[in-house]
């Protein structure tokens, strides 16, 4: 059985107000983002149309630069500015396509928000349950303060999108550097999904 101590509660008490406001601000931003995407999803009739229309919305609410940097890993420091820009563009396309591929016109997901937590300063995790086409999914949105709260990762059933690409792109970088990472991203984007 876990021992309970009141000391951590006492010590963290002054921070509680800050945490509550940051979690609610992050959750509010997430709800706005999801609301805007669902409004588009209700209007469009195909996956490709969703990918195109939702791109500008997602670019406002998702930090694709952060996602790409972390997906590449430590090798990112050796990319020049043009390579970083190109990798981010390609990764953005890949991520948007990954999620729009799961979309079926006419199907509307039901999202239940659970209590958000702040595991570190500048980061809030918002767990949700999503019911889509009769199936339940546990989806956690990792929000970070990057010039305002933005989505920095999506974790579905414990599987992080960023961690998943990190295992792939990090080894690609180690084998062939920035050029190999960009080439492999270009190949994935060019490949029909």
């Amino acid at each position, binding site marked *: 059985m876990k021992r309970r101590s009141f000391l951590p509660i006492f010590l963290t008490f002054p921070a509680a107000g800050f945490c509550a406001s940051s979690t609610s601000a992050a959750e509010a931003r997430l709800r706005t983002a999801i609301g805007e995407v669902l409004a588009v999803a209700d209007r469009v009739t195909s996956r490709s149309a969703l990918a195109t229309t939702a791109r500008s919305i997602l670019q406002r609410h998702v930090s694709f630069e952060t996602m790409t940097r*972390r997906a590449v*890993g430590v090798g990112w420091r050796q990319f020049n500015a043009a390579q970083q820009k190109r990798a981010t563009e390609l990764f953005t396309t890949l991520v948007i396509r990954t999620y729009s591929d799961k979309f079926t016109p006419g199907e509307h997901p039901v999202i239940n928000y659970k209590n958000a937590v702040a595991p570190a300063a500048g*980061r809030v995790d918002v767990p949700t349950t999503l019911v889509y086409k009769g199936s339940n999914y546990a989806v956690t949105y990792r929000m970070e303060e990057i010039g305002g709260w933005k989505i920095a990762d999506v974790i579905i059933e*414990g599987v992080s999108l960023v961690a998943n690409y990190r295992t792939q792109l990090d080894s690609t970088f180690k084998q062939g550097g920035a050029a190999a990472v960009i080439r492999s991203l270009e190949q994935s984007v060019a490949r029909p999904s």
Partner: protein
Amino acid sequence: MKKPASLILTALLISSCATQHATPAPEGQSAAATDALDDYEGAAEVSDPIEPLNRATFAFNDKLYSWVFTPISKTYTTVLPSPFRQGIDNVYENVKFPVRFVNSGLQGNFKRAGQELQKFGVNTFAGFGGLIKQSDRIPSLKDVPLEDSGQTLATWGMGHGPYIVLPILGPCTARETLGLVGDYALNPVNWTFALGDHADKWAWIPSTGNTVRSLPDQLSKYNDSKANAIDPYTAVKSTYIQNRNNAAKE
């Protein structure tokens, strides 16, 4: 407060990204991290000493799934409407109750074992033998995490061991392979085949039915994990390890 420090670190990292030269990681930050909040290094790590063999088995399985299992799955979903398939899934999941009940107990989580017992009772008696999942209407029974033997071994402190791609079954690790044996033994669906007379012409039906009914969901998960991948083998491995690590934590 840590927040300004993390923002300064992040700003320093972003500005350093503009250079082409390798830059050492800031003090107090892992050398493998790209910024102060980057905690992804090693998130899906597992040893893969037989990678060439695993990749060959992965390629074999991939063709098997495309050429054999997908047509079977499509036939099944075409022939049986969704509500019927849902009912069949519910029955099989209800029968699988000993897997979840025993493993909850073996993990010392007796509250969860009790919830599993309640779910089984409610679904069997109020849900027509498990056909309707009545337990979803009861808030305390709706989201009970599903326990299995692999999770029990993880709770007992056993690491994954080497990653193994099993023929037909797909991604696994040494620990999860042991777990599969435990789950197979605890699942009553397999008892007629494992304990009965193999000459019995009906013995294969429950376990084969279980395989066929689970194909659509399994194939969908497999296809999702390799869709838009840079390297499908690594993507599936990462998805599997992250998913199992998460299940063990719940």
